[in-house]
């Protein structure tokens, strides 16, 4: 393990700090302590525990707050601020009542936002009477928050990352007491900067910040941790997921196109096969992706794994109790900064996903929006759902907010009218988004006949034209030329 000279680090940190300060001053009073929450101050936080989980390539933040209603009346809306700078990094947010484990509805508030913060509204299931307490846990997942440092590592080296953030839990209400626990994957960690009020405690792979008392609302400071992250940082820049519903064949065809990159520290120098073959186990611990695991439905068949130049023969299928795990080995080991593209596809029986609303022509399709790979973040996901020909009244219900939902038509095999197609775009997707979407549509029994009629007409035209053609005489002047 390479130890960096502290001097160099200090210099780099200082420059980092300077640039961020400078940019902050341009944008506005980023570092000013005058941030005042714009949401109604109905709560006081009596105690708050925050866990910052850095053991995966993305940052999971769990904030458990015991809050007390200090207003005069019943309140059922609790606000959670997210820094506008990290708004696009926020992949997933959820809330629950810590006691009852009841899931609470979280929505991005369209009213309460300013240049600095975006507030998320957590709706309590029952309004909280004055001076009553409730414990709320808010889980957020942020992607692209960590930077490899050093930026280049050798092929058998473990990489280190730097996380730069707020030592305090960001709250919209003043807190009597709060504490942050940072969990890193290994015990190799260094904290370069943190508030000096309370001594920092480092225990194995944990760094504990706080407890801090009487923290103001929207309090923030500087905290930086450098830590080791074994393994790689898989990242999908773009995923195109095509789902085709065929009611004739009772088949659901799925194809997924990946544009994949290892976002970890870049490979220093070049790849050496000798080193790799000599110490395969050492290399495995470094920043390299040797295999990916995709989860497919239990009854998936005709599975394929290809790329732009053909089939990739190195994949294995293992049947688990409730799904199929497809292990994909890329053509080459993917070191830091390396990219690849590939696509996988399979067929699955439709009756697992489609229900007919009894007594009507309505059908409800229930398919996962996406099935992300573990520990992988997805920048942009496009989902195309192609419904059978003749479908009308398509309605889409998404389990989470997406960028856009569009309706169009696609023409494929022997289509005359075209098939209704739903195109959904989602940004910043992670494991937590593995949820089902519902698509409701109507398909009358008569539209089943469109295809056979079209096929029959085409054959008819073919035969008729050949009949006419064979009866025509193309000879010029008969057979008089023969000698």
């Amino acid at each position, binding site marked *: 393990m390479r130890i960096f000279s502290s001097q160099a680090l200090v210099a780099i940190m200082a420059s980092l700090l300077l640039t961020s300060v400078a940019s902050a001053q341009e944008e506005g009073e980023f570092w000013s302590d005058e941030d005042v929450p714009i949401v109604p101050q109905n709560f006081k936080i009596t105690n708050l525990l925050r866990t910052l989980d850095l053991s995966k390539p993305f940052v999971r933040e769990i904030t458990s707050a015991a809050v007390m209603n200090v207003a005069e009346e019943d309140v059922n809306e609790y606000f959670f601020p997210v820094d506008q700078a990290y708004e696009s990094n926020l992949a997933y947010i959820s809330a629950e009542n810590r006691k009852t484990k009841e899931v609470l509805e979280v929505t991005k508030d369209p009213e309460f936002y300013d240049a600095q913060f975006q507030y998320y509204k957590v709706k309590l299931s029952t309004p909280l009477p004055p001076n009553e307490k409730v414990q709320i846990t808010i889980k957020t997942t942020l992607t692209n928050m960590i930077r490899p440092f050093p930026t280049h590592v050798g092929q058998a080296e473990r990489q280190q990352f730097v996380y730069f953030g707020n030592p305090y839990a960001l709250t919209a209400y003043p807190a009597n007491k709060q504490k942050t626990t940072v969990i890193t994957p290994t015990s190799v960690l260094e904290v370069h900067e943190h508030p000096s009020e309370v001594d920092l405690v480092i225990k194995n792979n944990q760094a504990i910040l706080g407890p801090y008392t009487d923290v103001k609302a929207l309090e923030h400071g500087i905290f930086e941790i450098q830590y080791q992250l074994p393994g790689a940082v898989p990242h999908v820049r773009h995923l195109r997921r095509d789902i085709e519903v065929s009611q004739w064949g009772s088949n659901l065809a799925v194809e997924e196109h990946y544009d994949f990159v290892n976002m970890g520290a870049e490979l220093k120098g*070049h790849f050496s096969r*000798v080193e790799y073959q000599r110490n395969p186990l050492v290399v495995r611990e470094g920043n390299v992706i040797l295999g990916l695991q995709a989860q497919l439905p239990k009854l998936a068949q005709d599975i394929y794994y290809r790329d732009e*130049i*053909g089939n990739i023969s190195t994949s294995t299928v293992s049947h688990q109790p409730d799904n199929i795990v497809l292990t994909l080995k890329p*053509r080459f080991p993917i070191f830091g900064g390396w990219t690849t593209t590939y696509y996988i596809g399979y067929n699955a029986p439709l009756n697992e996903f489609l229900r007919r609303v009894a007594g009507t022509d309505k059908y409800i399709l229930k398919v996962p929006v996406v099935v992300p790979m573990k520990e992988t973040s997805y920048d942009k996901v496009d989902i195309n759902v192609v419904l059978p020909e003749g479908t009308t009244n398509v309605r889409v219900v998404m389990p989470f907010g997406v960028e856009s939902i569009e309706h169009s038509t696609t023409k494929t095999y022997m289509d005359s009218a075209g098939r209704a197609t739903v195109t959904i775009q989602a940004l910043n997707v992670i494991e937590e988004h593995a949820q089902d979407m519902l698509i409701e549509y109507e398909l009358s029994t008569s539209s089943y006949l469109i295809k056979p009629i079209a096929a029959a007409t085409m054959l008819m035209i073919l035969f008729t034209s050949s009949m006419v053609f064979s009866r025509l005489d193309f000879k*010029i002047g008969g057979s008089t030329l023969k000698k």
Partner: protein
Amino acid sequence: MSAASSSTIARVLKPTILILIAVVAISSRLFSIIRFESVIHEFDPWFNYRTTQHLVKNGFYDFWNWFDEKSWYPLGRVVGGTVYPGIMVTSALIHNVLHFFNFPVDIRNVCVFLAPMFSGLTAFSAYLLTKELKDSSAGLLAAAFLGVAPGYISRSVAGSYDNEGIAIFLLVFTFYLWIKAVKTGSAFFGLWTALFYFYMVSAWGGYVFITNLVPLHAFTLLLMGRYSNRLYVSYSTFYAVGTLLSMQVPFVGFQPTRTSEHMAGLGVFGLLQLYAFAELVRGYVSPKQFRTLLKGGIAAVSAVAVVGLTLLSLSGVIAPFTGRFYSLYDTGYAKIHIPIIASVSEHQPTAWTAFFFDLQMLIFLFPAGVYLCFKELKDEHVFIILYSVFASYFAGVMVRLMLTLTPVVCVSAAIAYSTLLDTYLEKSEHVLAANLKGTQSPNVISDTPAEAAGSKAAGNSMKKAAAKTSTKTPAKTAEPEINKSQSKTKRFPIFNWDSRAMVVMLLTWFLFMFAWHCTYVTSGSYSSPSIVLASRQQDGSQVIIDDFREAYYWLRKNTKEDAKVLAWWDYGYQMAGMANITTLVDNNTWNNTHIATVGKAMATSEEVSYQVLRQHDVDYVLILFGGVIGYSGDDINKFLWMVRIAEGVYPNDVKETNFFTPRGEYKVDHDATPTMKNSLMYKMSYYRFAELYGGNAVDHVRNARMPSEGPTLSVLEEAYTTENWLVRIYKVKDLDILGRNLKDATAFDKGKVRKVSALKRK
């Protein structure tokens, strides 16, 4: 059974059999697809595939004007003007038609299945051709033979997207149309011959075969005194329209008027006009005057022709024969003068065993068929005789031209085989009766089917059906023009059922053997893809070595967009297609100097080579190295060709003799010559190879124990090596930032200090 009903059966049977033959022809070409995957399996066709993709994506006009800056860097290549676009246009057309009808078939699949689909059509045209020569039962046999003959399969399996895939169909069909045109004397068929000739010209360089064979046929007929209006009409139509059309292909351009290869056609065209004129004049003047006129005319015309041709050749208006054609005449020519042609394995002379391997029993039936053609000797039979003579010669000279021989072998063999069947399956009483009558043609075949046919030839439905048809085909199919002299020859009536049974059983047995052999050869030799190497483990499971695509895909995804990769020309097309990077040389070996430069970069020492690499902006160097897994087609084994080609252009830098040990051996181990050890190719191949085995490395291709200290590299650095070391990619280093030469810089980085003496000298 009445004649009408048997003719109805024949009418149903024939298309059915033909469709079955097409199905067999297509399916026997699918081995590689079923065993591996639907992908272009061979090296060369990647260019066709890439251009087809371009055509489909950017449209025809863009394809026509495409300047490909990704090949022959820094020269580039005008693709539209240097390709035979037939195959690409065909695929694009099929693709677009399918897409018009909303069939979203991938262009890759169109390309992969193009050759098998066309083989079905080839079988059909063989049927038509043979039907013109004998009868439809021989036609069916010819179709069946051509459908499965390995000589043709070798170039038309699924995934081999080569020009030959459609060219053989065009060849056979053009010949059919030509024979039809000569037989009927119809301008309509002459025109179709010209149109298909044009298609052929746009598809394959082998069109020159038609360009010469058809005039030769016409000329021979003329010499045999068989001039007729039919010949005049058909040839004139064919030549005039065909030549004009062929000149529309940019790659051909004005060649039909300027090169020696095309002169025969023009000459015969002129001759025919003169002959026709003479015929005309003969009708108006007395024989004596005509003779004088003829003598004078011939003398004048030949004098003008000889003088004119000589002058034109000397002044360079008519180009002399190209090297590839010389090597057809003198097989040693290429080896001495154009190593680049000789270095291609498919340009080597054919081994005798290859004839049997590719054609099996057909090769024995072939002469018999030609003999039978001599017996008939109508205009169309003369054509087959000429075709077989010339194709046999060419097939003997160049392995690749086995392809042009195969159709005529199938046709002749079918004639021979079908004649045998006719003789031995005929119901004897009927023949006797026919002979007694004496007026009927011997070609007339029994109306009633011989029982023997059905039972003896059982098993193979195709053959059975073919045999049946041969007996059932009624008098209708016999040619209307019966040569009077022939009807007098009596055919042996074979009465004894035992001799008949024996012959028929033997023939059937031959058919079985043939089908078995064809399947075996196709499956074993012609269906193993070259982009993946497959082997079987001891437990029977398949191991696929996919190093080529591993390396190409790495290049495609992880190098900068305009990276230039230097590699031997064999891999050029593939690299451009799969890795999508810029190559210096490729399989279109049009610029010998450029190839020699690449050879020089490989064959010289690091210092010399580095200059070449820098001059050509090279970012990466790619080589094949089979030493780890024992892949014998690697670059060290091709190295001598690189040296030879480089020596031809840079005799001062590269000398072949320096690569041989004093005992005249080509060695890579301890005994390797210093030149060999210092060459970039050697260094790249064995760089860190010994380390893999802890210093005890053995090169499995050349069975050489390598020195424990491997070569060092200072101007290149290893960028990527594939799993089985089959492909090694090196990055060319930038100039040293301190201005040192790279050798010193590398030594310094390794902690070695230059010798004091070396410093003093500077």
